[in-house]
């Protein structure tokens, strides 16, 4: 239950309230969401769902998408619908934002909020990882830090995200989601990004939600790709350990992630002309 609300007028004020134990409130679709409360109570320590104080970032100037050449900067309070609509962004990132099943949520949810909520089935985080995105943040002391999306997620950081920096939005990238229906929670949320130079694969980035506590990089698959090995399904099925739940059994989840992500890898390689 939210017991206190403050609308921050400046970054400094937001930090000041953070130090007083307030959580950041961006769009609010996670903080206010009943399902999220249920989920966080069960699955993480990230959120003390029973008593929460929030500082709203709404008034801060943290919105907007800018692109210079291949580089893209996305303000942390940019709405997911704006990302889905932006012609400055790649089809894969726009698609990832569009995976949020309803327009009402996309109109409210922000990219920074989505990363901060750190959902295991986030659609945005795998794609940002595939692009090698880095997050420009303020830590609790107000120091500006630049962290990778992976570190932010895996270390459950609570820095105030200011901006998402994507170094190269033009790399081949394929993002996938698999769910039983429009509204259903996803059993697969993954993204594949390939850095190719002169027709040679230099770096493979494959990230997946739904198979671990957080979105993770699938390093075994990345290595296999970089080494030119095939048999992606097998690599995947032996390297992921999803838990069975209401969405399906462990075996089903392992299988569906393996085939859907393997197909995404092949599609991405095709896009990269590899």
């Amino acid at each position: 239950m939210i017991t206190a609300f403050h609308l921050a007028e400046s970054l400094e004020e937001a930090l000041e309230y953070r130090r007083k134990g307030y959580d950041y409130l961006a769009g609010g679709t996670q903080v206010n969401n009943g399902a999220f409360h249920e989920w966080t109570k069960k699955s993480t320590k990230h959120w003390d769902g029973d008593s929460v104080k929030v500082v709203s970032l709404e008034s801060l100037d943290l919105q907007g998408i800018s692109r210079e050449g291949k580089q893209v900067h996305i303000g942390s309070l940019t709405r997911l619908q704006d990302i889905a609509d932006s012609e400055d962004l790649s089809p894969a990132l726009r698609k990832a934002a569009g995976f949020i099943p309803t327009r009402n949520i996309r109109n409210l949810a922000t990219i920074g909020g989505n990363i901060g909520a750190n959902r295991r089935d986030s659609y945005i985080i795998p794609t940002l990882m595939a692009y090698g995105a880095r997050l420009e943040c303020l830590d609790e002391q107000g120091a500006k830090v630049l962290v990778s999306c992976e570190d932010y997620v895996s270390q459950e950081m609570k820095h105030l995200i200011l901006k998402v920096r994507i170094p190269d939005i033009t790399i081949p990238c394929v993002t996938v989601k698999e769910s039983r229906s429009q509204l259903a929670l996803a059993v697969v949320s993954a993204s594949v990004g390939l850095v190719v130079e002169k027709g040679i694969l230099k770096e493979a980035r494959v990230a997946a939600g739904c198979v671990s506590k957080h979105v993770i990089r699938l390093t075994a698959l990345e290595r296999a790709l970089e080494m030119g090995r095939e048999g992606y399904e097998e690599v995947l099925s032996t390297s992921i350990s999803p838990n069975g739940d209401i969405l399906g059994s462990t075996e089903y989840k392992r299988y569906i992630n393996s085939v859907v992500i393997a197909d995404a890898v092949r599609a991405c390689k095709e896009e990269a002309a590899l």
Partner: protein
Amino acid sequence: VKIQFILNGKSVEHEVLPAESAQVVLQRMGIHSVRNSDDSFGFAGSDTILLDGRTVGANILLAAQLQGRKVETVESLKNGRELGIIQQSMLDAGCVQSGYNSPAAALMIHDLLKRNPRPEKKDIEDALSSMFNRSNGYRQFFDAVALAAARLEDSGKKVDTVPSYAKNLELIGKPKVKKDAQRMVAGEAVFVEDRRTVNSCVLRVLRSPHAHAWIKSIDTSAAEAVDGVVAVFTHKDVPQKVYSQAGQGFPEPSPYDRMLISRKVRHVGDRVAAVVAENDAAAAQALDAIKVEYDVLDPVLDWDAAQAEGAVLVHNGEIEYIAGAPEDLKAINKDTDRQEEPVLYQFPIGGDPRKNIAASVSGGIGDLEKGFKEADAVVERTFETTQIQCTPLEKHTSLARVEGDRLIIHASTQVPYHLRRIVATLLDLPENKVRVIKERVGGGYGSKQDILIDDLVAFAAWKTGREVYQQYTRKEEFIGCSTRKPMRITVKLGAKKDGKLTGMYMKVESNQGAYGAHALTVPMNGVSKSLPLFLCENSAFDVIAYYSNRPPTGAYQGYGAPKANYALQVAAKELAEAIGMEHYEFVEKNRVREGSMLEILKILGEGREGKAAPAESCGLGECMKQGAEMIEWGKKVESSDPNIKIGKGFATIQQGSGLPGLDMANATLKMLGDGSFVLQSGGADIGTGLDLVCAKMAAEVLKIDMELIHVDSGDTDIAPFDTGAYASSGTYFSGGAARNAALKMVEKIKKEAAAILECKAEELEILPGGIVKGGSAGKKKQEMSFQKLAWHTQSGEGSGQIVATASFTTEHFSFPYGAHFAQVAVNTRTGKVTVQKYYALQDAGIPVNPEYALGQVYGGVVKSIGHSLYEEMKFDTAGRCLTTDLRSYGVPMIGDIPEDFEARLIETDDPYGPFGAKSIAEISVNGAAAALANAIHDATGLWLRSWPFSPQKILEELGTIKAQRR
């Protein structure tokens, strides 16, 4: 927190709590149109507002976040009393039925057309992606958007997507916007929640965490001490009597096996205590303060556990009968537990609670064994269906208050008169001390046929003298409500090589859950609304409903038919393959036809003695023919993707039109002083357009403009008795009563006019426009307007206001029929099933309200596609439901509807239905499971004998992954 924002163009200030949602605050500010369907889970859309010009959910938004923002609600779309173009287009396309989130849909379309004046299909899907719609299946929203877009360019654009029927009638079969739809899309205060006053108390229920337990002790003292708490009730405080929540005609074929609050809890979510408090916060604090000690018992969760040797008994109280008690009742009751409340049967329905059997029945015609011996092939297959929930957009809501010595209940109910009787009986009041006012109902689908919430709210109001209000949470909808019964159905069929069916047997075992509502009639209805689709001389059935410690089950649209028909229709296809006959040909050879005598009805009385009856009108053949043409039956479709397998399937369906010999409807028609009329109908319009049906019936008979008929329904003080909106009875019974009242009114008009015109009544006729004309032979014909007649009859020398009351009862059956065709694409790599085409062809007699009839077909189909593919109440081994919100449960949204989706009404003229009409809505859920299963078989060769057809199940059946134990 003090906030200031712009609301519909005006600057407003408001004090809010940090935790309050924008939806709660907007409601408090008098904005009724922003509603709550899913408690800030963010996926129902009823709470949609425009925030700085974008659609968002107000439930998921803190009120404090409105600071400095611009908020628009549906109230901004109309100009005075005049609706906006989008709202009017939604009305004309027939989109507004139960209407709970129609204002939200109007805002979404408004936003879409502002961004994109000429949207394509995908744009419409995106714009409406936030809207959960249960009543009319999304399909007509595409028509509404197209119409609105056209009208924004040309305001004179007429609706051209709604067909008309009944050429020889003026009003029946023609599109006409229903009155309540106009109010709902405008966002008016029409639902129970809108009747709440500032002084009302809230009622909240402490629910059992255990599936089966005795309450050893309960201490409410700390709860009672909470500031703002008015009363706390436990099993010690409630009437010590058993009753049934089933809203069925008295005497009910359901056991009286529950108390308002019992000392024994029988499912997770069962009532333990009720708190009445001045506000939500006090109620919540009080619930937390109640101390309960449980003596936990082993739960019984399925039919196998229920019938196992030495099984724990869900109901172990004394068994009693009002009539027809068995001679050995004393012996049966020998070891019962006197601490437990009794199980009272009004009459025998085959119940044996000592074996966890709530009800059972068996029957047969012909010689089944002989039939199977004659067969060249026999198939015997067992099917299973899961527990699913009605999920009305408007959660169960009730408001009760005391006026002098009377109890007034504002209810969202399908059965106002049963509600009155049940509450009056429970509280030992004569029925005239209880008034039920049925408000508009934001979706019922069967779950509002039972008295699931009004019983406790009424009791609390009567005890405290306060206005008491309760609205379920979405979670309570799943654990404290009524759901579709899981069933295990065994079908055995035999046929000769020439296709002739020689034997049909069906065994239905249902998992009744904790209490016995509809225990006999739902599974029996499964038999009676499926087997008669095929003509077979040798048929038999067994039905057994087992008690368990699952959340209670009850009525849901289709009743037992969707499940039993799924089993029968898939088994029929299997049998056709076994004898080497094409499926369509096999069904065509054995199907019911117009004039067929349905001998099997002799043994399918559903609570009364059955009798054989003919299928007087039957459009099934035409439904099959047109459906086969539409889907190009027999033409194989291939995909270029080797993983995608495409197949086609179909199923025939039927339902009834009310319960002949059991149901009863009444209506009173009053002529007012200017010749206009008020029709007081007992019918319960739950958003389906029943009031409009009744108005059309009366206006067609009286040959007057429909604006001259006002329908007043759903108030038990005002309108005469009606059994209610269930069993597909609305058009047939309530509509029939309206027609009969109008016919009687015509007789009275002629009689009164004859006296004034000095002629014989039989010489007079009613002319269009409210004129009665005629005269004696040789005299010049005279005429008189209804207005003039009313003036005469209501003057000081008149004979009195002309009032006509009539009832409708019948012994005649009128069966609606249909055939549903589906084309699916099965991805054999992922297990996902995509419904590419779905054609629903239904014979509803003469369709009275075509746009609403079609909407109900679309709604029924999408519901049943949801049941077949996505929806599922999942339980853990302790009986806890794990899917208690709309998203995890899996309701279908606009992105899930078939890519090509069309409903067609096949016109027939039923000899017994009013103006040839039969029922339309309920039958629509009976086809999808079988049509999809048969299509999946055509695509993949798999026989799916349990729903839902999840990707995991498909992959398991394909052998791609190992099957899990279920």
